[in-house]
C-alpha cells in the first residue's frame, strides 16, 4: 500500500519537475508520499474519536430532525441576511460572499442545459460576458439604470443563447460541446477586438444607477453608500443582498421549472432523444428553450457582476471560467438544485481558503480542482448532493459493471 504511494509520488515528482521546478516537484512528491502516513493517523484518530463523535453526531441529527425543514430554510435565510450586517465593514468577506452568489447563479443557469436537458455545453462564460458587457455599455453610454440594464443584459444573452442553440438542433454529444466552445471563444474575441464598443483589451467600465430598492451607492450628496438608510462602509453590501435575492428567486424558479411540463420534456430529451420525438415531445422547442433560459441566467449573473465590479476585463470570461462553472455543476450533482448551489459554494471557497490559510499552495488551485474531480469520480460520481433520478442512473451503471 505505502509502496504504491511512494512510486506514485516519485512518478508525479518526475512528471511535474520540468514544469514546476525542483523545489516544488519535491514538495509535491513529499506530500503525496506522506499520504499513507496521514491516512494512518486519520484512521487512528477516527477510531479514537468514533465513540464521542457518534454521540455528538446523533445529538446533532436529533436536534436538526426536531426542527422542521421549513424552519431550517428560514434559519439559513435569516443567517444569510443578518450576518453581513455585522460584517458590513469587512469588504473582503462581503465581496467573497457576493462573488459566490454570482457563481451560484451561473451554475444554476448552466444546470438547466447540462443537468436538466443533458445537452453538453462548453463556453458558457460567453453568455455571462454578453450580460456583463450589455449592461456596462448601456449604463455607460446611455445611463440606463440598473433594472433596465438587468432586463437588457438578460435579453441580449437570451438572444445569443437562442442563436447558439440553433446548431444544437442537428448536433449531439461531443460535437455540440465543440461547437459551443467555439462560439464561446468567438464571442470573447469579438469583445477583445471591437474596441470602439467594448474597450477591447483595455477593459470596459460600468456605471450602475439604482432606482430605489434601498440601494443608494456612494454619491457626493449622501456621502457613504446607504442600504435602506443604513450607512455601510462597503458599497458591495448592496450587491450582496441583490445577489442573495436573485439566488433565492432562482432556486424557486428552478424548482418550478424542473417539475414543469418543459422540465419533463428536458428529462425525456436527456434520456433518449428519438424516443422523446416518438412520444410527441417538441424536441426543437425543448432544446432552444433550454439554451435560451440557461443564457438568461448567465446574462443576469453577468449584469450583477458588471454592476458590482464597475470594470470588465475581457480575460475574465475565458475558458477557465466556463470550465469552473461546469465543474461546479458536476461536483454538486448534475440536475440537482441544492447540489449545484453546494458545488458552486465549495469551488468558489477553495481559492479563498487557500489564499488565506495555505498561501504557498495557491498556485496549485487547478491541481487541487483536478484532484477533487478525480476523487469525486471515484467515490461520488453522482455529485455531492445528487438528483434522485441521476443517483439511480449511476447506481444502475455501477451495478451493471459489478
Amino acid at each position, binding site marked *: 500500500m505505502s509502496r504504491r504511494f511512494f512510486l506514485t509520488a516519485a512518478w508525479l515528482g518526475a512528471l511535474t519537475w520540468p514544469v514546476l521546478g525542483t523545489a516544488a516537484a519535491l514538495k509535491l512528491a513529499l506530500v503525496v508520499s506522506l499520504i499513507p502516513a496521514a491516512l494512518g493517523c486519520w484512521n487512528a484518530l477516527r477510531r479514537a474519536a468514533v465513540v464521542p463523535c457518534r454521540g455528538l453526531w446523533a445529538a446533532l441529527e436529533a436536534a436538526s430532525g426536531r426542527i422542521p425543514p421549513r424552519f431550517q430554510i428560514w434559519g439559513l435565510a435569516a443567517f444569510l441576511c443578518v450576518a453581513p450586517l455585522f460584517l458590513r465593514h469587512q469588504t473582503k468577506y462581503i465581496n467573497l460572499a457576493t462573488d459566490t452568489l454570482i457563481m451560484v447563479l451561473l451554475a444554476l443557469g448552466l444546470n438547466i442545459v447540462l443537468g436538466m436537458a443533458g445537452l453538453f455545453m462548453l463556453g458558457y462564460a460567453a453568455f455571462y460576458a454578453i450580460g456583463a458587457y450589455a449592461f456596462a455599455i448601456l449604463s455607460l453610454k446611455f445611463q440606463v439604470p440598473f433594472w433596465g440594464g438587468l432586463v437588457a443584459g438578460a435579453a441580449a444573452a437570451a438572444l445569443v443563447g437562442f442563436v447558439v442553440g440553433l446548431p444544437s438542433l442537428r448536433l449531439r454529444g461531443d460535437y455540440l460541446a465543440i461547437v459551443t466552445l467555439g462560439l464561446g471563444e468567438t464571442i470573447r474575441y469579438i469583445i477583445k477586438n471591437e474596441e470602439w464598443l467594448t474597450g477591447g483589451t483595455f477593459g470596459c467600465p460600468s456605471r450602475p444607477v439604482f432606482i430605489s430598492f434601498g440601494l443608494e451607492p456612494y454619491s457626493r450628496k449622501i456621502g457613504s453608500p446607504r442600504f435602506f438608510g443604513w450607512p455601510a462602509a462597503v458599497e458591495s453590501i448592496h450587491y450582496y443582498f441583490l445577489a442573495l435575492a436573485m439566488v433565492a428567486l432562482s432556486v424557486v424558479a428552478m424548482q418550478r421549472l424542473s417539475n414543469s*411540463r418543459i422540465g419533463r420534456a428536458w428529462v425525456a430529451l436527456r*434520456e*433518449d432523444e428519438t424516443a422523446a420525438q416518438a412520444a410527441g*415531445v417538441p*424536441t426543437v422547442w425543448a432544446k432552444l428553450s433550454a439554451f435560451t433560459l440557461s443564457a438568461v441566467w448567465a446574462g443576469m449573473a453577468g449584469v450583477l457582476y458588471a454592476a458590482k465590479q464597475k470594470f470588465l476585463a475581457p480575460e475574465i470570461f475565458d475558458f477557465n471560467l466556463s470550465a469552473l462553472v461546469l465543474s461546479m455543476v458536476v461536483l454538486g450533482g448534475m440536475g440537482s438544485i441544492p447540489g449545484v448551489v453546494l458545488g458552486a459554494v465549495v469551488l468558489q471557497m477553495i481559492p479563498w481558503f487557500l489564499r488565506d490559510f495555505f498561501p504557498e499552495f495557491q498556485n496549485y488551485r487547478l491541481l487541487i480542482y483536478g484532484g477533487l474531480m478525480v476523487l469525486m469520480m471515484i467515490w461520488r460520481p453522482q455529485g455531492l448532493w445528487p438528483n434522485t433520478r441521476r443517483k*439511480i442512473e449511476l447506481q*444502475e451503471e455501477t451495478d451493471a459493471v459489478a
Partner: protein
Amino acid sequence: MLDLSGVHSAYGPIEVLKDVTLAVREGEIVALIGANGAGKTTTLMAVSAIHKIKAGEILFNGRSIADAAPHEIVRLGISQVPEGRRIFPRMSVEENLEMGAYARNSDLEIRKDLEHVFQLFPILKERRRQLGGTLSGGEQQMLAIGRALMARPKLLLLDEPSLGLAPKIVSQIFSVIKNLNAEGVTILLVEQNAFAALKLAHRAYVLETGRVVLSGEAAGLLTNPQVRKSYLGIN
C-alpha cells in the same frame, strides 16, 4: 388513411428507400415485412418525420405530412412504438406513460387512458412505480406500446414488437394488437416474424432493399411460393 408515394430516403449518400409506395386504409392491420436492412424502420421513421425524406409524398387523411415536425405528427394521430422499445429507462412506468400523453392537455382524459392501458397490461399497473429500465424485455415492450397509446393515436406504427420475446409474450402482444384494431385503431406493423404478422394482418407489403416487391392480401401472401421461400423458410 396513410399514403406513401414514391418515397426516397437516405442516410448521407446512402439511399435506403428507393421509391416506396404503400397505403394503409382506415381500420386495417397492414404488415410490412422484409429482410434485415430492407428499410422497414426507415419507412416508419419517415412517416413519423423523425428522419426526413428526400423525395416523394406522404399523405395522412389526404394531407401532406412530410414536412411536419415529429411532435405534430403525434398530434395528428400517428404514434410509433420504435424498434428496440426505447422507453425512458430512468422514468417510472407511470412517468413513461405520461410522457406519451405529452401533446395532450385534458388531465381527465389522460387519466382515463392511463386506466385503459393498465387494463390492457395489468402488469404495468403493478409496476407503476418501478423504473422503466428495470422492467423485463416483455414488460418494456408493453410499456412502449402503452406509451404510444397514451397519445390516443388513430394510426399506430409498430416496429418489431416481437423482437427478443418469448412466444407466450409474443402471442399476448399480438392479441392486444388485434384488440386495439377491433377498437378502431389502424395499424402498420413491421415484423421479422413474417408468419405471425401475415396471420394477423389484413394486407401486407414486402420490402426488399428499399423497394416494395410484393403486396396484397395477407392470406394470399402466406401461400405465395416466393414469400414462403424467403420469409417463412418453407418450401
